[in-house]
């Protein structure tokens, strides 16, 4: 039995560009099959196996569905429509892991030198300096700010090593966005996100998302860069144990570098968003 708190949230179920007419595309959400198709009038419908339509929001290139009664509107991402940004569709990657673990990995900085060696990090520059984490009650989101990290190749457009500034944001239970130093524009942030579709508690489809200031790099190179980064994470994610994300301390010992993860777990627990999480203390 899935709790109303889980059912009443928004989840990505596909890319708008890839939805076709009936019979459309069969996929899954929270362990149940759903089908996505366009009507003759061009509307996008997401419906359950019994033919019941789900609440739908179209935003940021993706189809978002709520299997229950939406507790609130989908999170805002103003940068998605900001003039001058390039929206990069990086496709979808399936990962055999808890959807919550996929989000948590995205929030982690400490693994950069070891998993994304010579790209997002490099030894001996492994220290994660103190940064700030808060749960912003007014928007009900987790934010990490004042993150600084040395990166050999922070973006496709970066010419050499730079200290990158980051902000991280958990915008929905299975969607996170980061803001990082834009190598081309000192007054703007590059925006990168992952939208995670929870197929089951241990299987998800991950849609990387990018809204960048970069008019020069060919689109395919931007996609390759982001897929390279995410696929370096995939083999790690598929081997994490326990499979479900523990929300209570005991099984895993966080360090200071894990403040964002600690806040994310606390936020999930407080809101009863336990799909993909261990529901009892280990």
């Amino acid at each position: 039995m899935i709790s109303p708190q889980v059912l009443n949230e928004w989840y990505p179920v596909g890319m708008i560009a890839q939805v076709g007419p009936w019979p459309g595309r069969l996929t899954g959400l929270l362990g149940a099959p759903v089908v996505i198709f366009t009507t003759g009038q061009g509307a996008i419908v997401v419906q359950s196996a019994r033919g019941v339509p789900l609440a739908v929001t179209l935003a940021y290139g993706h189809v978002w569905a709520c299997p229950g009664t939406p507790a609130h509107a989908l999170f805002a991402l103003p940068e998605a429509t900001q003039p001058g940004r390039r929206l990069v569709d990086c496709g979808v990657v399936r990962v055999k892991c808890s959807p919550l673990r996929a989000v948590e990995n995205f929030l982690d900085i400490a693994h950069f030198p070891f998993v994304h060696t010579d790209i997002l990090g490099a030894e001996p520059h492994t220290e994660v300096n103190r940064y700030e984490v808060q749960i912003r009650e007014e928007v009900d989101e987790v934010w990490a700010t004042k993150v600084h990290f040395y990166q050999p190749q922070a973006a496709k457009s970066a010419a050499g090593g730079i200290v990158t500034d980051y902000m991280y944001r958990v915008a929905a239970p299975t969607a996170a966005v980061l803001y990082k130093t834009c190598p081309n524009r000192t007054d703007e942030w590059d925006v990168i996100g992952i939208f995670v579709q929870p197929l089951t508690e241990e299987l998800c489809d991950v849609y990387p998302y990018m809204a960048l200031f970069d008019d020069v790099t060919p689109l395919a190179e931007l996609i390759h860069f982001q897929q390279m980064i995410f696929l370096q994470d995939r083999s790690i994610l598929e081997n994490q144990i326990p499979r479900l994300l523990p929300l209570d301390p005991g099984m895993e010992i966080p360090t200071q570098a894990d403040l964002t993860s600690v806040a994310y777990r606390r936020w999930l627990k407080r809101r009863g968003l336990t799909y993909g999480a261990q529901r009892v203390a280990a």
Partner: protein
Amino acid sequence: MILHDYVLSASCYKVRLLAALLGVRLELVAVDFHPGRAHKSVVFRALNPAGSLPVLVDGDLVLTESTAMLVYLAQMAGPDWLGATDATSAARVQHWLAFSARLNGSLGLARLHDMLHFAADIDSARAAGHQCLREIEAHLSEARFAGRIFLEGDRPTIADIACFPNIALAPDGGVELNDYPSLRLWQRAIRSLPRFIEMPGIHRLHELAPAPERGTTA
């Protein structure tokens, strides 16, 4: 020399890897294989009617089979990598080049299914993958008993490079390698080669870094 490339492709990585080991510089052209399916476009099919990756272009020469690219690179920059010292060894290397296509059709397909939503009969793809792994494991075990580590002869050849990527990436397709100890050691030997390069899913040998200091009670 231009390689039309996809960063997650095992076949593209074969060519990048051998070029790196040989010190040959490739100019990489990124092709939007996923999600754009640019390799199936009219423009790309003008270059390669098969609509497959990788494609290697050197002057007037256009190669569309990765094993042919390995032969070309080795013949040009490192003939020892051909492993062909007599009729028998030449034929055996050819065997593994052809065998690598079976790996791609089984383990490679399972990986594309599990990772990028490709349509496949996943159970039969994995079963065919295990069959291939059993064959090559048996061969490598025999080689180890004879004091060798690579597929043919006493040194790495294009046979190893052709087979390595889809085997190393097998876990991406839900095929675990725990039952194949000789394959694990063979992979380690390849990853230890000077100028080895990694790809997503194939990590560099962090374990070759200096061992941590031991405590006095150890």
